């Protein structure tokens, strides 16, 4: 994991003290809300329905025991004993008082964490594959490049006031677990021989105008990456619209110019960079950052026999192991998904106690490495197989072992109108009601991989556009309605879902989803044909028919 140097530590501490002064002036009435709002947003502080909300950055979802334990402590001390992990791999606290926030940020700074650039029209947290450094299918660990981009984009003076917010995602695997096609810039690390480079996708996003990113360059060599990114950012900073918030994202610029013209402008900007302004990242610096992400000293002991024996003896463990483990590049290891999706819970929420338990497990059994996934779960990326049973027992006792990773109850759900000042409808209760229909773990496994994503408004924090089944809450004259879309996907075959028809009342959503699933089960050629594959094979019509059959 990257460790702060003296400069990092200094700028984070200085920022806390600067914000403390701003908070004090707001509390005294010296600063008005109009003046204070842009300042608080630059420190991750929103004003939601019930309280201030503090969003803390978790760069590329990377945590360790000390950091997660501190996140737990902050929730105990300044909030109501829980936090919400988000689709941007960050954490949000829902109940903080303004007065306490500088102290909370100070506590976080002690473990090298902060809330800088978690809001505002700047480059936000860089997200990545939650199995980075562990996945069997990656060409290399993408985290060093996430860290390099993080350092480049932190307090970058030229990009502090962009037309709109800006989000990066980076993957290095064939299977895209970072949803790079729906980010402002999506990067896929590829190798040509021994040379490392980047496929650069630009202009993806969700929100009210969902668009998939377009490929602007299929191989930017690693030393040139930051210069190339600067060229893209400059084209956007110069031509991105500032007159209309809804047309201000880079995706609109790419769409309005067309991919060819946009690419031409980027290439022209890149070619025009003066030699002395080039960053030309030195290999020594690339190597220095990579060294922070060296793999742990993996345990060589083969624990397979004990693992198999435990599965044979304990069916619940076997079921969890079948669903919540991911293949690891190192023999004798697996990546564990710690489900934050218990049936009837709020997706992505974890209590202080649960965070402490996961922190302890990481330290004791899993090389002190923890990730947040964009699907709002936690991940222990490196667990020796011989420890899986002990890890499962502890997770199970803490309500963290729901066997549902990527299954139908592993929903992505935004906070919705229960918390959010922008929401039009509630998301969490709808997600809970859908979960209850499919609560039986055996039934979920029979259905197989199926992603349901729910957003409480068109801003799409719940990624409804890229859910296999998407659910969008809308307001109809003061009543909550829900629009269903079908066929979205966030992976390497990314697609935006298509709206299936008229919106439904909340109470009709679980039944509608059940009919969609029943239709799939009756149409699939075999249990191996996933929902999304059946949908793509037969088209949406039979599903739409079923959806509205009894509604």
């Amino acid at each position, binding site marked *: 994991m990257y460790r702060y140097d003296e400069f990092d530590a200094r700028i984070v501490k200085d920022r806390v003290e600067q914000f403390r002064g701003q908070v004090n002036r707001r509390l005294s009435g010296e600063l008005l809300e109009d003046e204070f709002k842009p300042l608080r947003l630059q420190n991750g502080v929103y004003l939601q329905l019930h309280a201030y909300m503090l969003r803390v950055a978790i760069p590329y979802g990377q945590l360790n025991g000390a950091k997660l334990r501190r996140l737990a402590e902050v929730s105990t001390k300044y909030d109501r004993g829980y936090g919400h992990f988000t689709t941007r791999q960050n954490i949000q606290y829902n109940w903080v008082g303004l007065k306490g926030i500088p102290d909370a940020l100070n506590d976080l700074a002690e473990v090298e964490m902060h809330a800088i650039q978690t809001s505002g029209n700047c480059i936000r947290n860089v997200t990545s594959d939650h199995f980075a450094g562990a996945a069997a299918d990656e060409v290399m660990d993408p985290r060093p490049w996430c860290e390099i981009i993080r350092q480049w984009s932190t307090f970058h003076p030229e990009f502090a006031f962009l037309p709109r917010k800006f989000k990066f995602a980076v993957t290095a695997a064939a299977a895209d677990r970072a949803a790079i096609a729906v980010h402002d810039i999506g990067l896929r690390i590829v190798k040509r021989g021994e040379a490392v480079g980047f496929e650069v996708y630009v202009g993806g996003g969700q929100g009210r105008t969902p668009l998939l990113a377009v490929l602007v360059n299929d191989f930017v060599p690693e030393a040139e990456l930051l210069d190339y990114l600067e060229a893209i950012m400059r084209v956007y900073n110069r031509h991105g619209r500032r007159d209309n918030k809804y047309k201000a994202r880079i995706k609109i610029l790419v769409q309005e110019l067309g991919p060819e013209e946009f690419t031409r402008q980027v290439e022209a900007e890149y070619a025009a960079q003066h030699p002395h302004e080039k960053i030309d990242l030195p290999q020594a610096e690339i190597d220095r950052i990579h060294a922070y992400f060296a793999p742990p000293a993996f345990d060589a002991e083969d624990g397979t026999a004990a693992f198999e024996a435990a599965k044979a003896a304990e069916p619940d463990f076997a079921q969890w192991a079948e669903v919540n483990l991911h293949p690891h590049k190192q023999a004798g290891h697996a990546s564990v998904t710690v489900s934050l999706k218990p049936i009837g819970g709020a997706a992505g929420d974890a209590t202080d106690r649960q965070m402490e338990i996961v922190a302890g497990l990481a330290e004791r059994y899993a090389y002190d490495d923890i990730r947040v996934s964009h699907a709002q779960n936690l991940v222990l990326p490196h667990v020796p197989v011989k420890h899986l049973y002990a890890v499962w027992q502890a997770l199970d006792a803490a309500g963290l072992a729901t066997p549902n990773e990527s299954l139908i109850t592993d929903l992505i759900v935004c906070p919705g109108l*229960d918390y959010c000042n922008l929401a039009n409808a509630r998301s969490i209760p709808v997600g809970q009601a859908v979960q209850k229909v499919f609560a039986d773990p055996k039934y979920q496994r029979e259905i197989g991989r199926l992603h349901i994503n729910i957003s409480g408004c068109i801003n799409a924090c719940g990624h409804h556009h890229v859910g296999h089944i998407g659910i969008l809450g809308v307001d109809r004259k*003061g009543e909550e309605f829900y629009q269903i879309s079908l066929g979205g996907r966030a992976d390497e075959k990314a697609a935006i879902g298509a709206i299936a028809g008229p919106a439904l009342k909340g109470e009709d959503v679980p039944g509608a989803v059940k009919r969609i699933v029943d239709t799939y089960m009756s149409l699939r050629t075999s249990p191996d044909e996933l929902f999304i594959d059946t949908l793509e094979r037969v088209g949406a019509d039979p599903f739409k028919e079923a959806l509205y059959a009894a509604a």
Partner: protein
Amino acid sequence: MTSVRPKLKPETPKAITAWETATGKSVWMTEAGTWSDDVSKAAAFTGEIAEARLGEALKQEGQVTDPYFMEVTESGGITGRETIRETIRATGPTVAYGASA
């Protein structure tokens, strides 16, 4: 400043709600012009009096943030097209959270 909320006619009864600046808690203006975190203490205003009271609220920036009109019945109960949102602001999330979830 005020939040962008639905426009209400002058004769429509309205309460004035805001966030307490120090805590972010939802608060409502009482008949006496003080602030309460109990929605049942919210006073209903109409016409010019309502506008005048909102004007006063806007001057109390250190104490409250973003005051705005919320539609209520004559007796002060939440009503209108923002009923769900305002009820949630008044009574909290409709789902259990934290250790009680």
